[in-house]
């Protein structure tokens, strides 16, 4: 793995939170309770699009056991102000309306009112007593429909941003985005082969196993405590501060253990409501979503349409590439359109590129981030079109990608020029893999696709404390979703030269450590890892000062090696090395406690690339897909903890396979979601899949002391097209619409072979 360069990095140690999680001792969102707490419930709109004429809460308020009832009137309105949340951005004016509807209900499941009562049963009863007078409006679900001039308009103030001249009439198109490189028209003139196709994808949910949950306790003096299952407790604090009008320092948010988020827990739904209900009732208020509420009103990732046009020379050199993307934002503007556009051709060194994107609102739940937000959608179109090009040219799909691969020095269409990246190495890892060198089994077809994600740096704080026995606590502020505690402790142990078991990583609440941006963007091991390394270095600096004091020498004359302070050379004098434990024991005499701190805005996140290959069979009678073999290669920079790196690659691949094969939101004619549960929202189950082989490629990121690149997002980008390309090759019919569900494949096979009997 790491060529013996490191003692701890690259080892597969037990994770610090592992024992608690396998024994059930770990406490997740719904496990937190306070004495005297009330249970909160939300009333949700049954309509996809309706004016809220009035809300009568009087009967609910009179029900014995009900302690507080609220509507949007209990929250101050917010300005038209954009703030970042993970990889995406939200508008404060919209977010307060997403939490509780104001003028209109904009999707089925849109919260309209909330109650807190002494029991959950009374809260449910109270919800049924709230009378809402709706004026039902025509609704629109589909992106293409929502873009039509005669579509029902969701927001009367919404003028398309990014078009000239600015429009004077409101529409559902919130934004147009353009990015380009070279001269696209000149590119088409050079092209000897041109391929053009249009693709669609459906909305998909992140599918985290733990529903949203929050517990809030407002004190009489204005302090507010919140426990929440979130990817970013500092964001929960920030949002609650703005939405409730409470100063940031008055709010303390403690993150619980988190049962998955995948980007979907970078926003707030319940927290501001629970907090306001607690303020109104004077009691702690706990709220937990049902799975149905999770499906109807949280997440999802957008569906969209992608048009792709590629022009190439006969030798496979791509000379022109064009892409048009329209994404569902949900009820409010703000789909991950930027990342979808910018990642589209990022894998390739193409001289002439044109990308246009549209952010479109419709009567669906507002989308949230989901693993590499936007990237899988554009990759579905681009990587499918590349496969058609490979077939047209008679080229091996890996060779075609190698011929056009982005390298150090490649300028992207969205601006930056790549530093050291490992796309070529990743393609070669697949090309040289046992899987790729073995032919698919008879009856099986092979698909290949690649994917890219920027990875993110941003704000992190960390602290390291030496205890009186010489053991170490590493304190950071990012909820641990993918094994980050283990990775941070490994880096601290490596830096400090002590045993991993001597380092205890903890995740502090918002009042106990400096600001940390969300766990998202694949930033924690990189950026918070950097903060941890720097905090340990700060602690080592102090340790050297203490050793110098003990020896009566200059701090510069002390070095830190193998967990001990040593004289820098023989000229310093003859001193026995001082261990961490010895320095800790004498700390009281040398200047008090020994701690280290660091805070930074991490720059230089190393982009990640992945290449996936899959062998599968389509049952031509039923349209069912059987996956026989799946290999995913990825440049991860340095695998700090290889098991969790592999776990991220496998998990991303599985979610992408689900996106490709069966997952979709199914709406009925009234705009209501028909499959708000895991039975009919079909994520893959274990028996659907073979072992996902993860090939870890390590091209270190030059901007991190241990070469870390983000890992978690890249692996969901390639699977859609890898599966789609294999299915299309198996059926000899190019499939362009997701999901590739049995009825859809069966219908495509039947349409292509009309003369042959149904079976």
């Amino acid at each position, binding site marked *: 793995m790491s060529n013996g360069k490191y003692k701890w990095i690259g080892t597969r140690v037990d994770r610090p939170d592992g024992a608690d999680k396998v024994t059930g001792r770990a406490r997740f969102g719904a496990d937190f309770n306070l004495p005297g707490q009330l249970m909160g419930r939300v009333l949700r709109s049954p309509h996809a699009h309706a004016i809220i004429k009035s809300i009568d809460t009087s009967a609910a308020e009179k029900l014995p056991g009900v302690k507080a009832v609220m509507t949007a009137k209990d929250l101050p309105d917010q300005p038209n102000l954009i703030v970042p949340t993970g990889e995406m951005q939200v508008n404060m004016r919209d977010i307060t309306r997403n939490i509780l509807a104001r003028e209109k209900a904009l999707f089925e499941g849109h919260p309209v009112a909330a109650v807190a009562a002494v029991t959950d*049963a009374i809260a*449910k009863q109270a919800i049924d007593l709230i009378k809402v007078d709706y004026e039902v409006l025509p609704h629109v679900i589909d992106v293409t429909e929502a873009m039509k001039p005669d579509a029902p308009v969701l927001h009367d103030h919404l003028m398309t941003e990014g078009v000239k001249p600015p429009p004077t009439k409101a529409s559902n198109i919130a934004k147009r985005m353009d990015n380009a490189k070279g001269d696209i028209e000149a590119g088409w003139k050079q092209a000897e082969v041109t391929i053009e196709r249009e693709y669609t994808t459906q909305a998909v949910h992140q599918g985290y196993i733990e529903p949203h949950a929050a517990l809030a306790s407002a004190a009489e003096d204005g302090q507010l405590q919140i426990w929440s299952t979130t990817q970013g407790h500092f964001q929960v604090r920030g949002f609650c501060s703005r939405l409730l009008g409470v100063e940031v320092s008055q709010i303390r948010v403690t993150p619980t253990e988190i049962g998955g988020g995948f980007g979907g827990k970078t926003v707030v739904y319940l927290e501001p409501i629970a907090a306001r209900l607690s303020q109104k009732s004077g009691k702690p208020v706990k709220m937990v979503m049902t799975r*149905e509420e999770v499906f109807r009103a949280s997440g999802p990732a957008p569906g969209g349409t992608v048009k792709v046009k590629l022009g190439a020379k006969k030798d496979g050199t791509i000379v022109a590439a064009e892409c048009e993307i329209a994404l569902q934002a949900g009820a409010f503007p703000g789909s991950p359109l930027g990342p979808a556009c910018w990642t589209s051709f990022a894998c390739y060194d193409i001289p002439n590129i044109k990308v246009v994107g549209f952010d479109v609102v419709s009567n669906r739940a507002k989308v949230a981030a989901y693993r590499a937000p936007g990237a899988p959608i554009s990759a579905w179109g681009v990587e499918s079109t590349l496969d058609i090009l490979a077939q047209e040219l008679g080229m091996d799909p890996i060779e075609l990608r190698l011929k056009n691969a982005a390298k150090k020095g490649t300028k992207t269409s969205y601006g930056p020029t790549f530093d050291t990246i490992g796309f070529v190495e990743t393609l070669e890892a697949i090309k040289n893999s046992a899987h790729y060198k073995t032919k698919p089994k008879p009856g099986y077809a092979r698909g290949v696709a690649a994917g890219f994600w920027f990875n993110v740096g941003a704000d992190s704080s960390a602290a390291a404390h030496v205890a009186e026995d010489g053991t170490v606590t590493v304190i950071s502020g990012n909820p641990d979703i993918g094994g980050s505690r283990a990775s941070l402790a490994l880096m601290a142990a490596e830096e400090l030269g002590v045993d991993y078991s001597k380092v205890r990583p903890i995740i502090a609440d918002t009042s106990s450590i400096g600001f940390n941006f969300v766990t998202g963007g694949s930033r924690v091991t990189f950026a918070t890892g950097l903060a941890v390394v720097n905090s340990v270095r700060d602690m080592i600096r102090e340790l050297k000062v203490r050793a110098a004091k003990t020896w009566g020498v200059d701090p510069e004359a002390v070095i830190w090696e193998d967990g001990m302070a040593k004289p820098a050379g023989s000229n310093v004098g003859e001193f026995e090395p001082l261990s961490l434990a010895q320095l800790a024991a004498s700390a009281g005499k040398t200047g008090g406690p020994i701690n280290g701190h660091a805070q930074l805005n991490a720059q230089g996140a190393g982009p990640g690339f992945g290449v996936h290959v899959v062998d599968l069979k389509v049952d031509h*009678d*039923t*349209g*069912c897909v059987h996956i026989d073999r799946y290999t995913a290669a990825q440049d991860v920079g340095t695998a700090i903890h290889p098991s969790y790196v592999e776990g991220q690659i496998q998990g991303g691949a599985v979610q992408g396979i689900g996106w490709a*094969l*069966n997952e979709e939101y*199914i709406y009925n004619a009234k705009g209501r979601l*028909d*499959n708000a549960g*895991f*039975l*009919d929202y*079909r994520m*893959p*189950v*274990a*028996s*659907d899949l073979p072992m996902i082989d993860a090939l870890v490629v390590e091209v270190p990121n030059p901007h991190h002391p241990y070469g870390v690149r983000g890992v978690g997002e890249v692996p969901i980008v390639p699977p859609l097209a890898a599966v789609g390309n294999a299915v299309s090759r198996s059926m000899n019919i190019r499939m362009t619409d997701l999901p590739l*569900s*049995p*009825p859809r494949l*069966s*219908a495509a096979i*039947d349409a292509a072979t009309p003369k042959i009997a*149904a*079976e």
Partner: protein
Amino acid sequence: MNDVRYSAPSTLDEASKAMLAANGTGWILAGGTDLLVQMRSGMRKPGVIVDIKKIDEMMTVQDLGGGSYRIGAAVSGAVLGEHKALKKAWPGVIEAINLIGSKQVQGRASAGGNLCNASPAADSGPALVAAGAILAIHGPNGRREIPVEKLHSGPGRTTLAPGEILVSFTLPARPKGSSDAYLRLIPRTEMDIAVVGVGVNLTISGGKCTAARVGLGAVAPTVLLVEDAGKALVGSSLDDAAIEKAAAACRAACKPINDKRGTIEYRTKIAGVLLKRSTAIAIERAKGN
């Protein structure tokens, strides 16, 4: 939520009385794998839950000889799956019952409960219809018997009268050269509900099919006995033409809907595909008997 009363009588008469007294708010608890989930989701709000697992007859498997078995309605799928002789005699019935839910659910879920929940997509239905199972029903006026295909009157509805309880189902004796098979189509490999389910039960003697019954699930408001499919097979040598005729009969019998689980066209097509595949399995098994 209102208070729920729980009773666990040890006789059928007591259970029947408790159900009658509940005046429409009573629900039978066997494994509870449907009822408890429905209660949790707010779909059912029982006043009285009558647990019938303390009643011996509901929990017993009885070998009646000649391949005939009487199976208590509350016996769990896991127990039936481990009953070697029963599994050998009626492989199609048992594989259908063992498809209800996950491994964990199998430890509780019963075929009787699966039938009484009356989903047209229930896995036990088509296999038991093909088998020609006879249901014993105990009620305020004593006992009656009906063929399994007469139990359902629509999605979620049965022909059971107030106070009536499904006690057992009896699989008939079959001559040598008989066997059965059940196949369902689900988009995933587990944890899913049948888009179509087909059960086939047949007897082969001297190279000819002498008896055949076909049960078809998830393509109509109730599980169907497809008599024309059975007729197409009987008297044939189970050649491709006869099987295609049976498949066509299955397709013709379909009255499906378009919903989140499949289209009309898809379900109709799959009914034919699964008839062919399950018939092929039943033939193989029958040859071994």
